C-alpha cells in the first residue's frame, strides 16, 4: 500500500515539476532545477519499485481515488508486472534526467522541452499503475500528447513538423483501437474495471477481435510492422535524451499494455493468437534491421533498430502465448522470461546508444554518418561506451543482449512438442528470421561504429571536436556498466522477473542464483547452460595473459607510419568506405527483394568526356503499398465531401430532415 502511495506521489511530483517548468519558463536556472527534480523523483520511484519487486505479491496493493468518472472512480494497482515495468521505466527516466543535466544546456529553446519532459514521465508511470480502462486510456493519451509536444520541440524544421503530424495521427489511431478493445473487453455491462475484465469469460471470437485491436493499438505505439512508419521519423526528431526515453521506455509501455491484456485480462489464450504475434514479430525484426542497415542518419538508424528489437520481444511473447495455450508451462515461462529480459536489456542499450548519438550531435552538430568519422580519437569515453552499446545490441557475449537472445533461442528449441501443424511449420521459419536479424544487427552496428567513430574524419566538423560534459558521460558509463553486469550475471535478472512470470503463467523458470558458478540453466544442465561471468573472465584473462606474454617474451617495439595507400598518393578521407558503400553488399543480397533496391551505373563510352554516374533507387514497400493508397483514398473522399460545404439553405434543411428520419427509423428497428 505504502509503495503505491509513494509512486503516486512521485507522479504528482513529476506533474508539479512540469508546472514549475512552465512558471520558470525562460529562466536560465530552469534546466538544472527541472532535471534535478526529475532525477530525484524518478530515483525515488525506481527504488520503490525495486523494493516492491523484491517483496512478495500475495496481495497486490490497490487504491481507488474518487476522481474521474463518477460511477467508476480511478483505480490504481501495483502488481508484479507493473513493478517490473516501473523499474525499467524509472531507470531510463533517471539516467535520461542525468544526461539532460548536461545535454539540456545546449538546448536553444528549453521552454519547449522542460515542461513536457516530467509530464511525459508522469504519463508513462500512470499507464503502468492504471487498473481500469478509463484511467489507462487517459494516461496513455496523456503520454502520447506529452511525447508529441517533445517531438515538436524543434518545430521550425519542416521534417520535424511532418514527423509530429504523422505521429499524432498514428497515436490517435492507436488510442482509438485500444478504446474499442477495452470496450469489447468490458462487455455489455460496461465493466471497465480491470478486476472485472479479468474475472469475466471472453468468447474466442471476441478474444480474437480484442487481440487484433490490441495489436493495432499497442503495436502502433511499439512500432510493429506495418504500423511502424511514424517511429523512425518521430523518435529522432525529439532531443536525444527524449529520443532515448521514447525508444528505450515508451515502446516498453506499449509492450506492457500488450502483456497486461493478453496474459492477464484476456484469460486463456488461443494458439492462433500466438501464431499471429509470432509471425508479426519475426517480420518486424527482419524488416526493421534491414531498414536500419540502409540508413545513414545516426538517430534514425537507432530508431529502426528499435523496431527490430520490438520484433524480437514480440517473437518471444508469441512463443509464450502458444506454449501457454498448449499448457506447456515451463516453456511458456522460459519464453516470457526471454521477452521480459529483452525488454530490460533493450531499455539499457538503446538509451545508451541514443545518448551516444546525442553526444556526437552536441560535439559535431551532425547526425549524418557520412559526415562523421574518426571520433574515437577525440571522444574517447563516448566512443568506448558506444562500443559497449553496439556489442550489447548485436547480441554478442558476454554482454546482456546475448543472454536474452540465447533464452529466446532456447524457447524456440522447446517448440517441436507443439501439437498444431501451422506452428510446426512457422516456428523454424521464425527461428531462421530471428537468427537472420541478429546477424544483420551485428552487421548494422559494425557499420555504425566503424563509420562514425573509426577511420578518418570526413568533414572539418568531425575533426575538431571536444568530449562532452561529465553528466552525459556519467549517464553513458552507468548504462554501459549495467549492460555488462546484466550480461555476466543474467541469473539476477531472470530471478528478478520470475514473480512476474509466475503471476502471468502460473509456472516459472528454476531459481538461477542457486546454481553453482552463477550459470543460467533454463531447463536442465544436460540440455543447455550458459555462464556469462566465466566467459567474460576467460576472455579477459586469456587476452591479458597473451598481451603480457607477447610483450614480455616476444617484442614490444611499435612504429607509427603512413597507412598503405596502394600506390595512390591521393590521401583524401573521401577514399574511405562510406555508410552507403558498407551497406551495398547487403543491399544487393536482401534489398533487391525487400525494398526493390536497384543500382544504376551510367558509364560513358570510351572517348566520351562526361563523368560516370551511379545511383541507387530503393523503396519503402509498406509505405508505398499501404499508406499511400490510404492517404489517396482519404484525400479523394475529402475532395468529394467538400461539395457539401457549398449547398443552398433548402438542401441543408432537407439533409437535416433526412438524417432525422433515418435516425428515427434506426431507433424503431433497434427496439
Amino acid at each position, binding site marked *: 500500500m505504502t509503495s503505491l502511495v509513494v509512486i503516486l506521489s512521485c507522479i504528482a511530483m513529476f506533474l508539479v515539476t512540469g508546472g514549475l517548468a512552465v512558471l520558470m519558463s525562460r529562466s536560465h536556472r530552469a534546466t538544472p532545477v527541472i532535471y534535478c527534480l526529475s532525477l530525484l523523483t524518478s530515483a525515488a520511484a525506481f527504488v520503490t519499485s525495486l523494493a516492491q519487486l523484491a517483496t512478495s505479491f500475495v496481495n497486490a496493493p490497490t487504491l481507488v481515488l474518487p476522481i474521474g468518472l463518477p460511477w467508476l472512480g480511478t483505480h490504481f494497482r501495483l502488481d508484479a508486472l507493473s513493478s517490473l515495468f516501473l523499474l525499467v521505466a524509472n531507470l531510463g527516466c533517471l539516467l535520461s534526467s542525468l544526461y539532460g543535466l548536461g545535454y539540456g544546456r545546449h538546448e536553444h529553446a528549453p521552454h519547449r522541452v522542460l515542461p513536457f519532459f516530467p509530464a511525459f514521465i508522469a504519463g508513462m508511470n500512470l499507464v503502468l499503475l492504471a487498473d481500469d480502462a478509463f484511467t489507462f486510456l487517459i494516461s496513455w493519451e496523456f503520454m502520447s500528447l506529452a511525447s508529441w509536444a517533445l517531438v515538436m520541440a524543434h518545430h521550425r524544421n519542416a521534417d520535424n513538423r511532418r514527423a509530429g503530424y504523422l505521429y499524432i495521427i498514428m497515436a490517435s489511431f492507436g488510442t482509438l483501437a485500444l478504446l474499442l478493445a477495452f470496450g469489447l473487453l468490458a462487455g455489455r455491462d460496461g465493466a471497465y474495471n480491470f478486476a472485472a475484465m479479468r474475472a469475466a469469460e471472453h468468447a474466442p471470437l471476441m478474444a480474437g477481435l480484442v487481440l487484433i485491436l490490441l495489436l493495432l493499438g499497442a503495436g502502433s505505439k511499439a512500432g510493429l510492422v506495418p504500423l511502424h512508419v511514424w517511429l523512425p521519423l518521430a523518435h529522432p526528431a525529439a532531443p536525444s535524451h527524449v529520443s532515448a526515453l521514447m525508444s528505450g521506455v515508451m515502446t516498453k509501455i506499449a509492450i506492457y499494455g500488450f502483456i497486461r491484456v493478453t496474459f492477464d485480462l484476456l484469460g486463456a489464450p488461443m494458439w492462433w493468437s500466438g501464431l499471429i504475434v509470432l509471425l508479426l514479430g519475426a517480420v518486424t525484426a527482419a524488416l526493421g534491421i534491414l531498414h536500419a542497415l540502409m540508413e545513414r542518419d545516426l538517430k534514425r538508424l537507432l530508431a529502426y533498430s528499435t523496431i527490430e528489437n520490438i520484433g524480437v520481444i514480440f517473437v518471444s511473447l508469441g512463443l509464450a502465448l502458444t506454449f501457454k495455450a498448449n499448457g506447456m508451462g515451463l516453456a511458456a515461462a522460459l519464453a516470457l522470461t526471454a521477452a521480459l529480459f529483452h525488454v530490460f536489456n533493450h531499455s539499457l542499450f538503446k538509451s545508451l546508444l541514443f545518448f551516444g548519438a546525442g553526444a556526437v550531435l552536441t560535439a559535431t552538430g551532425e547526425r549524418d554518418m557520412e559526415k562523421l568519422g*574518426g571520433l*574515437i580519437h577525440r571522444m574517447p569515453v563516448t566512443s568506448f561506451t558506444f562500443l559497449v552499446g553496439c556489442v550489447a545490441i548485436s547480441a*554478442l*557475449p558476454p554482454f546482456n543482449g*546475448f543472454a536474452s537472445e*540465447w533464452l529466446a*533461442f532456447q524457447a*524456440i*528449441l522447446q517448440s*517441436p512438442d507443439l501439437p498444431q501443424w501451422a506452428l*510446426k*511449420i512457422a*516456428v*523454424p521459419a521464425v*527461428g*531462421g528470421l530471428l*537468427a*537472420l536479424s541478429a*546477424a544483420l544487427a*551485428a*552487421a548494422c*552496428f*559494425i*557499420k555504425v561504429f*566503424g563509420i562514425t567513430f*573509426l*577511420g578518418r574524419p570526413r568533414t572539418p566538423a568531425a575533426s575538431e571536436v571536444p568530449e562532452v560534459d561529465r553528466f552525459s558521460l556519467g549517464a553513458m558509463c552507468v548504462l554501459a556498466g549495467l549492460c555488462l553486469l546484466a550480461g555476466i550475471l543474467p541469473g539476477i535478472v531472470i530471478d528478478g522477473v520470475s514473480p512476474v512470470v509466475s503471476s502471468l503463467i502460473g509456472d516459472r523458470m528454476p531459481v538461477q542464483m542457486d546454481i553453482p558458478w552463477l*550459470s543460467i540453466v533454463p531447463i536442465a*544442465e*544436460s*540440455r*543447455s*547452460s*550458459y*555462464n556469462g561471468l*566465466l*566467459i567474460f573472465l*576467460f*576472455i*579477459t584473462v*586469456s587476452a591479458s595473459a597473451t598481451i603480457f606474454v607477447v610483450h614480455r617474451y*616476444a*617484442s614490444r617495439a*611499435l*612504429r*607509427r*607510419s603512413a*597507412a*598503405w*595507400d596502394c600506390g595512390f598518393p591521393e590521401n583524401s*578521407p573521401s577514399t*574511405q*568506405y562510406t555508410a552507403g*558503400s*558498407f*551497406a551495398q553488399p*547487403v543491399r*544487393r*543480397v*536482401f534489398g533487391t527483394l525487400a525494398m526493390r533496391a536497384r543500382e544504376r551505373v551510367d558509364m560513358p563510352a570510351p572517348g566520351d568526356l562526361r563523368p560516370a554516374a551511379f545511383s541507387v533507387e530503393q523503396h519503402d514497400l509498406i509505405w508505398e503499398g499501404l499508406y499511400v493508397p490510404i492517404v489517396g483514398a482519404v484525400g479523394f473522399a475529402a475532395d468529394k465531401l467538400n461539395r457539401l460545404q457549398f449547398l443552398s439553405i433548402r438542401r441543408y434543411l432537407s439533409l437535416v430532415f433526412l438524417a432525422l428520419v433515418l435516425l428515427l427509423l434506426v431507433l424503431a428497428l433497434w427496439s
Partner: protein
Amino acid sequence: MISALLVQACQMALVVLLAPLLTGLIRKVKARLLRRQGPSLIQPYRDLLRLFRKEAVVAENASWLFRVAPYLIFASTWVAAAVIPTFATGLIFSWTADLIAIIALLGSARFFLALAGMDVGTSFGGIGSSREAMIATLAEPSMLLIIFALALVAGSTQLSTIAAFMSSPAVGLRVSLAIALVALVMVAIAENARIPVDNPATHLELTMVHEAMVLEYSGRHLAMIELAASLKLLLYISLIACIFVPWKLAAAEAGPAAYLAGFIAYLAKLAIAGTLLALFETSFAKMRVFRVPEFLGAALMLALLATLLRFVSRSL
C-alpha cells in the same frame, strides 16, 4: 578436480599448438597436389615466431581499438575452441558455453576484426569489412539453424551431450543430419575464408575478404590474427569431427589410456579433414564475390530444411 582441470588445460594448450600444424599440413598437401615441393609442415610456426619478434608497424591514425583487437579476436576464438570436445568430452568448463554461445563468441571475434579493418580508414579495410559483414549475415543464421537441427536430434545444445548422443546407437541414419552436415561444411568453408568463397593464399586479388581486413596489420598483431585464423579452422574441423565422427572420444574421468586413444584419433581426424579440405580447394575455382550469397543461401535453405524435418517428424 585436479585431473579435470589438467585435461582442460591440455585441451587449451593442444588447440593452440596444433592449429598452425593443421595450416601447414593443408598448405603442404595443396602444394603436393600442384606438383610443388611446398614449405615444410612446421613453416607456419616459423612464420609466427618471426612475426612475433618483429616490431609492429601501425598506421599513424590507428586507434587503441586497432591494437587491442588482435588480442580480443584471439582470446574469443581461443575460449570458443577450449570448450569443444577434441579428444575428450565432459571437459570441466564445457557447461560455460553451449553451441549457440560458441558461435556467438566467434561472432564477437568477427565483430572486432571487421571494426579493426575500418579503423585506419583505407578503402581496402572497408571493402573487406563490408564483405565479411555480408557473408556473416548469411553464414550465422545458417549456423544457428544447423544448431537447431542438431539440438532437436540430440535434445541439447550442449556439445558434450550432443557428442555423447551421436556416439550412442540411438542416432541411426537420419536425413536431417545428412543435410545438416552438408550445410555445416558449406558454412565452415565460408567462415574460414577458404576457396571457393575466399582465397587464403593471396593478398593481391580485389575479391578478397579476410586478407583485405587485416592488410594494415604487421608484426605481433598480424601473428595474433594469423593464429586466431588457424585456430578458427581447427575449431570448425573439431566441431564437425565431434558431432559427426565422435569415435574414440574419451568420456569424463576416463583415464590416461582412453585420453591417449582419443588424442591419436583426434590427430587422425584432423589429418583426414585437412587433406580433404586441400583436395577440395585444389579442385575448385574461387567464386565471384556476389556468387557467395547464392552459395550461402543454399546452405541456409538446407539448414532450414534440416530443422523443418525435425519439426515435422521425430524419426527423420
